[in-house]
């Protein structure tokens, strides 16, 4: 059962009027303009035991992504496709609002929006993940770990997911006589086949202002949020209104335009981070 949130933070609500005064002057409290994301850092291969990993900092929000790849059985209706599973953990150390326990509706929503935005545009080439059709395929477990929560988990999580997927390496394995697939501790040099890069852009609506990449205070005072996923060609590959309020048609049109420009900023940062990754790898040799 989904219940109106009852752990409401009061202080940002009291500050709402001062925030609105800034917006009327075209400013935000952290000196950004309405349509710019916070400072972003993307690190990849931050863990050795995972097949792929990344750590993304979006302002003070930190998300770690870890990918484990294991042999498994395909779904009955897709015998010639591998399996992608996305899960998100709102780890209690990230915020006083997060409680230990099984995934709540917020972490399930986060994981499912990321999952759909990767699945529907076929961002990961699941057809390339077959070992023996109908019998053994690769299962990609993508776990998003929220380590520090200062708003906008969707965009940080999608950047972390993409960075980890794009730098992950398939396991080395051998097929035993029994037909079992044994993976060795070594990780191969083969990447996961990625068809498309995807980013999400989150905007908060505070009265009649639309703010890209809201921080936690901005999220708390907002009426509602929109998450729009884009591919590099500018197609919309996923969308979700999240939060209690509502939007007019004109506001949604405006959000789509603003978000599609911000998506380009995210793509540039993601591509730059991956380029420097390649350089480092070459430098090592």
């Amino acid at each position, binding site marked *: 059962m*989904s*219940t*109106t949130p009852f752990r409401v933070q009061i202080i940002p609500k009291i500050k709402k009027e001062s925030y609105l005064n800034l917006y009327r002057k075209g400013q935000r409290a952290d000196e950004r303009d309405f349509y710019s994301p916070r400072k972003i850092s993307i690190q990849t291969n931050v863990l050795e035991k995972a097949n792929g990993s990344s750590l993304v900092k979006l302002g003070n929000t930190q998300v770690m992504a870890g990918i484990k790849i294991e042999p498994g059985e395909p779904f009955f209706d897709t015998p010639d496709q591998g399996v992608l599973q996305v899960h998100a953990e709102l780890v209690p150390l990230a915020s006083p609002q997060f409680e230990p326990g099984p995934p709540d509706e917020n972490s*399930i929503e986060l994981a499912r929006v990321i999952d759909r935005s990767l699945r529907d545009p076929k961002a990961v080439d699941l057809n390339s993940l077959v070992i023996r059709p109908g019998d053994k395929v690769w299962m990609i477990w993508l776990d998003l770990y929220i380590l520090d929560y200062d708003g906008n988990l969707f965009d940080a999580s999608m950047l972390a997911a993409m960075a980890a997927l794009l730098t992950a390496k398939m396991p080395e394995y051998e097929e035993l006589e029994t037909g079992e697939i044994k993976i060795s501790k070594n990780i191969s040099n083969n990447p996961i086949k990625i068809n498309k890069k995807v980013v999400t852009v989150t905007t908060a609506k505070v009265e009649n202002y639309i703010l890209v990449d809201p921080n936690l205070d901005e999220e708390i005072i907002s009426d509602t949020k929109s998450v729009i996923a884009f591919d590099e060609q500018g197609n*919309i590959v996923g*969308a979700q*209104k999240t939060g209690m309020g*509502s939007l007019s*048609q004109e506001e949604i049109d405006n959000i789509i335009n603003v978000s599609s420009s911000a998506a380009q900023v995210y793509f540039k940062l993601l591509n730059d981070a991956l380029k420097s990754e390649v350089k480092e790898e070459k430098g090592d040799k």
Partner: protein
Amino acid sequence: MTRPQRFIDDEGKRLDGRKPDEIRPVKMQVGVLSNADGSALVEYGLTKVLAAVYGPKESQKSISLPDRASLRVRYHMAPFSTEERKNPAPSRREVELSKVLRESLEPIVITDYFPRTSIDIFIEVLQSDGGTRTVGATAASLALADAGIPMKALVAGVAIGKVDNVLIVDLNEVEDMYGDADMPIVAAPDLGQITLYQLNGVLSKEEFHNAIDMAMKVINKLVDIEKETLRNSYKEAGEE
């Protein structure tokens, strides 16, 4: 179920004979349960959803809010509602849909009239043939009104899809499963506000805009049917 070769024939008709902007036959009934404070049964074609509202009633202390009523929403699918039996334990999908449906109803319920209370909304999918969350939103809107809960406006829902490069309204299960996009939308036309939208699939910016336009036209009609249904229920009550 297999993927059809084509979804739209040479005459522009869909697999079930509908035009792209045509909704399935709609049925709405209110006051269908005796215990609930308000209830409704809504059908779009073969999709049948029952909604019940209890409250406002005194809230459990832990979730009680000092300045407004809390909404509690459960979207749930009956085990016999699907092709293969569905495990009745709530799935991750049902948890997410309960959340987005609650958030689609929060903007229309005047919650500040009833501080420290909760209003429970139960949405049970009895038969699923695509569009269950949007039919659920329509049923919940009717059940809230039937319970006499003060509301700013009624909402209704419909899904927009894309098959063979054409936008279509109110997907059935085949169109949902094998189509290129599924975009459920819930809106309150009297407020000009959209209270739920999701997109599963790929659309261009222009298609996204047109999809919302298309949905608003249908939702307008659906809310008119809701109003008619409520009016008739009072007429019947007066005659008794």
